[in-house]
């Protein structure tokens, strides 16, 4: 399949040098961050969005999004390009950098970037999202990029006509299993429970797919291989029986790990590291710091409510501080 990314999100005209101070600094350029940017810029605030990977956040890794209102079907990449285009359109500055530190001192807030640049701001909105959780089993780190992957659309091509495993039972896991089934010879989904968490419509597609097999009630205890992944140690939680599953690759989708290491000793977090916010205002335990999207403590993490969080955080920030 040949397609062409026209790169509407890569904007040569973009300002590369940023200002020394902003009204609002948004950390994270996914749906929550970009939407926060739209609301904040439209509210007349000088707004900076900082994204460390590529603009769009995790959504860009989703091949097809079918549950964002207004789009019957849209690629994750296309949707996120639209988000960033909109944020730019209303005047947000967007830069590619990593935040090293956040300094809250005496009524002022500073965001320190990886090149030591210090940006002064009145309000910070944390929209750093979450990354894929690791299994935490032997072999996973050593074989990362050697058959262990967390991105099916990026790396699926390396496993053409091979046998791969997908670990997990939620929407991401099953969607990726379906995507991989287009190129690999066989996908074995290993899930710790006896039924899937994924949406019914996605489950039905997976069960009807002749290339997808399921191993239920099981977890991975080790990823094995010399230079490359060759097999998985699978343990059945009900019977205790261990077995070996020969695969060439393993795609891990077992949930999300919030990107909050930076805020550990600063903001109130849950046990798992999600940011605790006021449910109405999305303000964190520190006045003037808000949080939005997958990074906050909540039940449902979808693109649509990440975007909604961004709108709420910016609107409440405007109401309270400007």
């Amino acid at each position, binding site marked *: 399949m*040949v397609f*062409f*990314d*026209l*790169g509407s999100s890569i904007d040569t005209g973009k300002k590369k*040098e940023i200002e020394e101070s902003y009204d609002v600094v948004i950390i994270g350029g996914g749906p929550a961050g970009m939407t926060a940017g739209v609301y904040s810029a439209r509210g007349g605030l000088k707004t900076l969005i900082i994204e460390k990977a590529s603009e769009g956040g995790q959504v860009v890794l989703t091949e097809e999004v079918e549950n964002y209102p207004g789009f019957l079907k849209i690629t994750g990449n296309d949707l996120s390009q639209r988000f960033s285009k909109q944020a730019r359109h209303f005047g947000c500055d967007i830069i590619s*950098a*990593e935040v090293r530190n956040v300094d809250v001192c005496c009524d002022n807030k500073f965001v320190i970037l990886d090149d030591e640049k210090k940006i002064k701001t009145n309000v910070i909105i944390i929209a750093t999202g979450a990354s894929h959780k690791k299994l935490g089993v032997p072999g996973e780190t050593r074989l990362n990029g050697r058959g262990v992957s967390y991105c099916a659309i990026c790396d699926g091509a390396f*496993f053409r006509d091979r046998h791969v495993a997908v670990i997990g039972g939620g929407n991401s896991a099953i969607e990726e299993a379906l995507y991989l089934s287009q190129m690999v010879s066989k996908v074995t989904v290993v899930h710790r429970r006896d039924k899937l968490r994924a949406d019914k419509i996605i489950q039905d597609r997976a069960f009807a797919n002749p290339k997808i097999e399921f191993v239920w009630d099981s977890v991975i205890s080790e990823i094995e291989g010399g230079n490359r992944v060759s097999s998985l140690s699978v343990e059945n939680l009900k019977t205790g029986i261990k077995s070996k599953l020969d695969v060439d690759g393993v795609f891990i989708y077992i949930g999300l790990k919030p990107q909050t290491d930076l805020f550990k000793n600063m903001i109130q977090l849950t046990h798992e590291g999600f940011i605790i916010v006021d449910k109405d205002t999305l303000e964190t335990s520190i006045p003037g710091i808000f949080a939005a999207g997958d990074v906050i403590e909540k039940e449902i993490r979808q693109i649509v409510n990440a975007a909604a969080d961004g709108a709420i955080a910016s609107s409440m920030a405007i109401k309270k501080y400007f």
Partner: protein
Amino acid sequence: MGLLKKNEQTIVKNRLAEGMKDPIKIVLFVSDKQEDCHYCNLTKEVIEEVANLSEGKIATETFLMSENKALAEKYGVEYVPGFTILDKNGDNRNVVFHGAPFGHEFATLLEIILVVSNGYETPVPDSVIKKIKEIKEPVKLQAFVTPTCPHCPQAVLTSHFFAMINPNIKSEMVEASEFPELSAKYGVSAVPQVVINDGAGIFVGAYPPENFYEEIMKTLGK
């Protein structure tokens, strides 16, 4: 009937019309044997299509690799399809693409065309540009990608921008699925993967310019 759809042609045409300043030239190396190079014809086709949408600002020239090895070597093109972009002075600043510019890498191609045409005005922050300019050792960067990888253009662009900034740096995009042997050599199975100085340094992921620079320094032992 081109590879690009009508509406895509319009978008590309507008981007080039708005964004291009100086004329550029894309020099492509191909094999005359289709069986040696599955993507040579398609690459030629898409490059010529882009050139046709540029209102004369993009010239193209295609050479057979087998008969023009010296020229390919001059530009740092090692495999087919391989191409490079010459600025108005005929310089390519050691920026090379190995493989078809399809999928997300088409966005990379457009971006690089615009940057070359605008006298190498890159979006790399000045603080990083300063440090990149200070690198005295030869650095070879190979950014392995797949066309379906949305984070990959960021890795290729940063790599290419670094080469534009410092003549000691060479940068290549390598479309991993078209060059399986080269990919296997560095064990590429996750992209973007950047290989520094033939494997002396390797990292997986689209790093911001500052972190990318730090990886180069680590490889150089600094």
